């Protein structure tokens, strides 16, 4: 027996939570002496009001989809992977090495190789924490935090000392050769004669993200491995009883998680910057945690949450660019959205359930 219809829980609860988050954000905007209506208008128009805004929103969305999926897969195995930041950074290194290593004649050849490179490096960066957790019981939360710092140091060293062209100020790799530049969504639209999102960074990696969502969904809910991952995540003794090896699941789940985080580099490094810069991940790994948890650890939820954060990122950027509202406001709005939809959701759900229960009773 249900307390309230599933549709209500899946749609009404998050919408009311979101409304509450924005209401409080509006109060904050008022408090700093700006107009919330104006701010909302700038955000919505800037992020969703034009193909141009969408081009950016979808670019950020793509990043968050990858890091969100990464957190999600590990979460299903009962592992809290805070290392998306480092894994995505290492994925960037993987992409860069692949792209710069060979004279790729065409992006279509370079892309699969880069995907492999990104996934491989991301996965490798998750391997040690995974192995330590499985074999030595070192808590994966600590080790992945540590590996974020270590990745930053390693990347810094590699960029400054090995990959940086001599004489360049920038701690960044050389530019990727034009042949490896990924098609932007705008290029693709143009091929169909549509002028959509010119000069925006959204690129073919967006489709890879969607494919990744589908594959992860299949993996978690339709394959034996996913079944085992979920079983292990829910109960280790039961997994043992069923013949599921904890070591194997821990390592495999973290490898997949790391690979997904690493894949983000296809979007930001290969698709957008077209070279590797020092701080390429820009906190997307941490946003992935919020995205996964808010998305209720389901790929569709992750996608929607990533879209929401993509909107906040782009809309917030526009806000900071074109109004005098400081960019930190966006961080606050993000925080409130995370808080209300992710942590205070029962505040909305409990009264709703009561409402539905009374309605049901009345109906008999």
């Amino acid at each position, binding site marked *: 027996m249900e307390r309230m219809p599933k549709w209500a829980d899946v749609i009404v609860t998050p919408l009311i939570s979101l409304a509450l988050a924005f209401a409080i954000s509006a109060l*904050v905007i008022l408090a*700093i002496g700006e107009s919330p209506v104006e701010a909302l208008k700038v955000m919505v128009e800037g992020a969703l009001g034009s193909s141009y805004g969408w081009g950016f929103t979808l670019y950020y969305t793509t990043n968050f989809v990858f890091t969100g999926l990464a957190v999600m897969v590990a979460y299903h195995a009962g592992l*809290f992977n*805070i290392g998306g930041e480092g894994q995505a950074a290492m994925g960037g290194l993987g992409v860069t090495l692949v792209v710069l290593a060979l004279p790729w004649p065409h992006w279509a050849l370079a892309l699969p190789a880069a995907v492999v490179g990104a996934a491989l490096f991301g996965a490798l960066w998750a391997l*040690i924490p995974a192995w*330590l957790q499985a074999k*030595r*019981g*070192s*808590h994966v*939360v*600590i*080790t992945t*935090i*540590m*590996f974020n*710092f*270590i990745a*930053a*140091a*390693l990347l*810094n*060293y590699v960029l*400054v*000392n090995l990959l940086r062209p001599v004489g360049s100020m920038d701690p960044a790799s050389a530019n990727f050769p034009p042949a490896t530049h990924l098609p932007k969504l705008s290029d693709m639209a143009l091929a169909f004669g549509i002028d959509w999102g010119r000069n925006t960074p959204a690129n073919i990696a967006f489709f890879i993200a969607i494919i990744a969502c589908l594959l992860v969904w299949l993996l978690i809910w339709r394959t034996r491995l996913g079944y085992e991952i979920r079983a292990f995540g829910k109960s280790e003794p039961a997994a043992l009883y069923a013949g599921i090896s904890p070591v194997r699941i821990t390592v495999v789940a973290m490898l997949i998680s790391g690979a997904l985080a690493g894949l983000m580099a296809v979007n930001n490094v290969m698709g957008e910057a077209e070279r590797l810069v020092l701080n390429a991940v820009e906190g997307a790994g*941490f946003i992935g*945690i*919020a995205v996964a*948890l*808010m998305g209720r650890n389901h790929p569709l939820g992750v996608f929607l949450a990533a879209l929401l954060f993509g909107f906040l990122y782009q809309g917030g950027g526009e806000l900071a660019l074109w109004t005098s509202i*400081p960019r*930190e*406001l*966006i*961080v*606050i*709005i*993000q*925080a*409130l959205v*995370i*808080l209300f939809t*992710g*942590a*205070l*959701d*029962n*505040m909305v759900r*409990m009264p709703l359930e009561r409402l539905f229960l009374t309605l049901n009773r009345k109906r008999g």
Partner: protein
Amino acid sequence: MDFATILQILDSAMRLMTPLLLACLAGLYSERAGVFDIGLEGKMLMAAFASASVAYATGSAWAGLLAGITGAVALALLHGLASITFRGNQLISGVAINFLASGLTVLLGQKIFELGGRTPSLSGAARFDAITLPFADSLRPVPVIGPIYAELISGHTILVYVAFAIVPLTWWVLYRTRFGLRLRAVGENPASVDTAGVSVTRLRYAAVLICGLLCGLAGAYLATGISAGFVKEMTAGRGFIALAALIFAKWRPWSALGATFLFGLLEAVANRFPNLDLGFVTVPSMFMNALPYILTVIILAGFVGRAIPPRAGGEPYVKER
């Protein structure tokens, strides 16, 4: 390495470990009561900002401290509301609080001081000064003990001593008092506390408030003790390191002292020897900077077994769904 250098490194380790220790103990109270907290970073940041602002405005470090505690406690209450009253996801709530603090501090700081989120530098009574312990100077000439007392033990701000004193205090509270017994019980099996007629909610709120209080001390120390004012994001990941130390310490107070000391020491050593010359190769500074993290992983892998968190940790107490 001579004796003086060792003393200086230890001295630096003591200062560097203090915010970690306070935050680690803060997390200890909360998590021992079954409320996981990855929002230590945010609470510290908020406290650092509030204490620096009020200390600047009033010229009193103590007023700043009070404000810092208030700021951290306010966020702690929010965490309590989400994770205790509304049985929300504690991890999400913690993440949200980190973001919230990160945004609010800069927004408010910019609004008030217009220095891009910084507060003006503090001076005089707006900062906690180093305290010279009695006889520090007269004992100095005594070999070994003298320098240890005068250089290492004496000459820290009051908050450092407070932090160290809270370790035995926490041990005592946890293992020798009624409150401690109930606190530990509620983190292991809240139903045991509930059926004993004690309110799980009240206990958990108490724990979360203490967590806020200690984060307040940690943040105030950062802004008004070890440095002189607030700079955005000045916690620089210390909340996460404190969390790592807490797991490292297996949620025990004395071990928390040890774990945070280790982190402080590693950082102090890396500060002191930025380019370690091993003769055949010089370790680049980037790796010396990462050394504390690398060593942590090695130590965890080699010497610390499985860390089992409080059994009811992370789960809201639901008796009627």
